[in-house]
């Protein structure tokens, strides 16, 4: 099964895909921005500041999702010695880091009108800040060790340590008294968010997913060409 993950086989797809993904991203983002900034209603308590949710929440979801994917791919890649999984993880990390930073900055901007402060050492915010540090450590490890076996080992250890933080982020609002409200969207039980706000939130999430896919594809292609450059040096 793993032969389908061979870089030589998938480059023909990944090299052509970005332009289609970019096109789709622009369309979905335009719809999402119109919904989020103009068509969606204001909140009865938070008024228009609730609109920040449409960038803050998807960014937080995707940064957590990407880190979980990186950990899964690194562990499976290490166990089964699939180098391509490390390449995929490495290509996912930059967008994960940027989404994590977006979640923190937009959360801070949202905090000022809602809580009266730009920053608080609250459990959710602090654990998200720790996740940024893990993303940075992960990317720095790749920069230092390049593409050798040591890099595979060290980056896997970083992701395994970092993944402990992910459930802490998710459940911090239930375990501790924090400024954050508990989750409004639940997969297993009824969501407390109104459909008029849920729809733009889902559209914006789709746009953000497409953007991370676009960056992933471009990064992955760059990494493959880097490897091929080294191959030409050896000829």
């Amino acid at each position: 099964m793993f032969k389908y993950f061979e870089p030589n086989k998938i480059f023909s797809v990944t090299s052509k895909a970005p332009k289609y993904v970019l096109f789709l991203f622009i369309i979905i983002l335009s719809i999402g921005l119109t919904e989020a900034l103009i068509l969606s209603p204001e909140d009865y308590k938070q008024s228009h500041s609730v609109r920040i949710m449409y960038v803050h929440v998807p960014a937080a979801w995707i940064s957590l999702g990407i880190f979980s994917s990186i950990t899964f791919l690194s562990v499976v890649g290490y166990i089964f010695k699939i180098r391509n999984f490390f390449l995929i993880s490495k290509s996912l990390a930059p967008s994960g880091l940027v989404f994590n930073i977006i979640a923190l900055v937009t959360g801070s901007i949202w905090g000022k009108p809602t809580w009266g402060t730009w920053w608080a050492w609250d459990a959710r915010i602090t654990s998200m800040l720790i996740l940024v540090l893990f993303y940075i450590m992960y990317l720095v490890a790749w920069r230092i060790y390049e593409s050798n076996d040591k890099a595979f080992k060290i980056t896997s250890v970083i992701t395994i340590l970092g993944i402990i933080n992910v459930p802490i982020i998710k459940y911090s609002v239930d375990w501790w008294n924090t400024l954050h409200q508990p989750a409004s969207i639940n997969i297993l039980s009824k969501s407390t968010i109104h459909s008029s706000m849920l729809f733009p939130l889902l559209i914006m999430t789709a746009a953000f997913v497409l953007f991370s896919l676009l960056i992933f594809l471009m990064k992955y292609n760059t990494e493959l060409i880097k490897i091929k450059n080294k191959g030409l040096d050896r000829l």
Partner: protein
Amino acid sequence: MINETLLMNGYGLYVWSAFGFTLLSFGSLYLVTKIQYTREKNKFIAKFGNLNSERAAFAKSQSINKEILSNTSSI
């Protein structure tokens, strides 16, 4: 209508700066990634051009190399 959308009952500055920061981050990440991609691709094309005909023929026999050389996508 336009005033309401811009000012948002006094929350406009917060909302627009949050969206602005997000879009600016997207633009920066896209540009940096694109520059890295173009740089690596140009390096590859230059290296390929320096190969002698025998080595170039061997390198061209690999499908991925052909893909890189033929891929004229602007992204």
